[in-house]
């Protein structure tokens, strides 16, 4: 007997973890971005996308941890109230 828990891939996409956010979310200002990609690389949720100097966050999955705003060397990402 088996429990039916061997699943197709990427089922985590159905779980919109953006609802876990409390109070603050990152805002990408797109003013001083130097394209270092640190926010994209360090996002634990993998929900930052973009290229060159245009990065954006998917609020459906962003848990509001603030790592992107903290790591941004040019302070181009800020945490704002929801």
């Amino acid at each position, binding site marked *: *007997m*088996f*429990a039916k*828990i*061997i*699943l*197709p*891939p990427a*089922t*985590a996409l159905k779980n919109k973890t953006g609802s876990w956010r409390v109070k603050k979310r990152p805002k990408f200002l797109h003013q001083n971005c130097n394209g270092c990609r640190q926010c994209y690389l360090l996002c634990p949720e993998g929900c930052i996308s973009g290229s060159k100097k245009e990065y954006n966050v998917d609020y459906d999955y962003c848990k509001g941890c603030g790592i992107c705003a903290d790591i941004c060397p040019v302070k181009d990402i800020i945490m704002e109230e929801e």
Partner: protein
Amino acid sequence: MKEFLEGAAAIARTVSVCRPAVIAAYPITPQTHIVEELSSLIANGKLKAEFINVESEHSAASCVLGASATGVRVYSSTSSQGLLLMTEVLFNAAGMRLPVVMCCVNRAVSAPINIWNDQQDIMVVRDAGIVLLFAETIQEACDLHIQAFKIAEDPNIMLPCIVNIDGFILSHGYEPVEIPQRELVDKFLPPYNPPYKLDVDNPLTFGPLVGPEWYLETRYAIQETLNNEVKQKIVEVADEFTKIFGRKAFGLYEEYKTDDAETIFVTLGSISGVVKEVVDELRKQNEKVGLLRIISYRPFPTEISKILLKAKRIIVLEKCISLGSKGPVFEDIVSCLYLDAYSNGNKLPFVNNYICGLGGRDVSKEEIIEAYKDKDVFKFIGVKKENLGSFI
């Protein structure tokens, strides 16, 4: 053809004829030379398999778990502290329903550091959903390995299986052993054909996060599988093994002179050999005694209550203890006897629990006979009073 072989070497050669594709192990104490032998078989080109040398037992178990998920036959071997480090992964292997086959060379657990034989280590993973088989002799250890692959890899079972052998007594002991012929093993053990596997063309998720609405069913499914499919399969596989290899495989348990026995010893593993001699000796003195040796400890063969309820006294002799309670085998025996007697109105026998041989302490025939005559309910056999006292 029989050869005079050391236990570890005999097991390694038996595993090699079972054609595992991936073997992973961490080669340091308390590892035994089962994997050392296997790695040299691979290095010498006698076995075509991937040998992964890892940095810990946790990684060894993780490697074979991952390899098993890709749909190949896997094997590892460990012992005492190594098994404890693997514990987390072994629960995962059972929960992910992956048929990892392993040998656990039973040894004591620290502290104090002790590498000698008892069966305490395996009791830590007793509740994980793993099939646990115990061998009495080196030959049986080899035979159980072949059966273990067949049981674990059955598409209706898909659970890990650990063959337990007593450290040093079987792993380092020598015995005339017949290594099964490759042709016979191929006939008995078909190539592993999993019902599901990791495949880039058809991706799957193993061991996902599940909430309270799913977890309970995973445990229910393992429990049902162990108590139905696995028990049935162990008996079937033992019958088939006996037919193909011409050597008796006992299945769930072995009975020795229990037919008219008034007292029945219950044991696991190699100590059964000593107890068989004790039974013969006591029989010469007209004492009606017998032995019931449990081979499959998980799933627990509750069927044995039919045999044990005919006796007046049961002596559970075990090399492990659940500290603060009693021996784990004793607890299993008492619960199965009680439930059977309660539903069928039988009279319960007097059940005794003797703990012996911890940390490799030798257990003599005389000590067992003395315990048989003393009729204590619970005791440690061979406690040296002079070794006890205040802390220094």
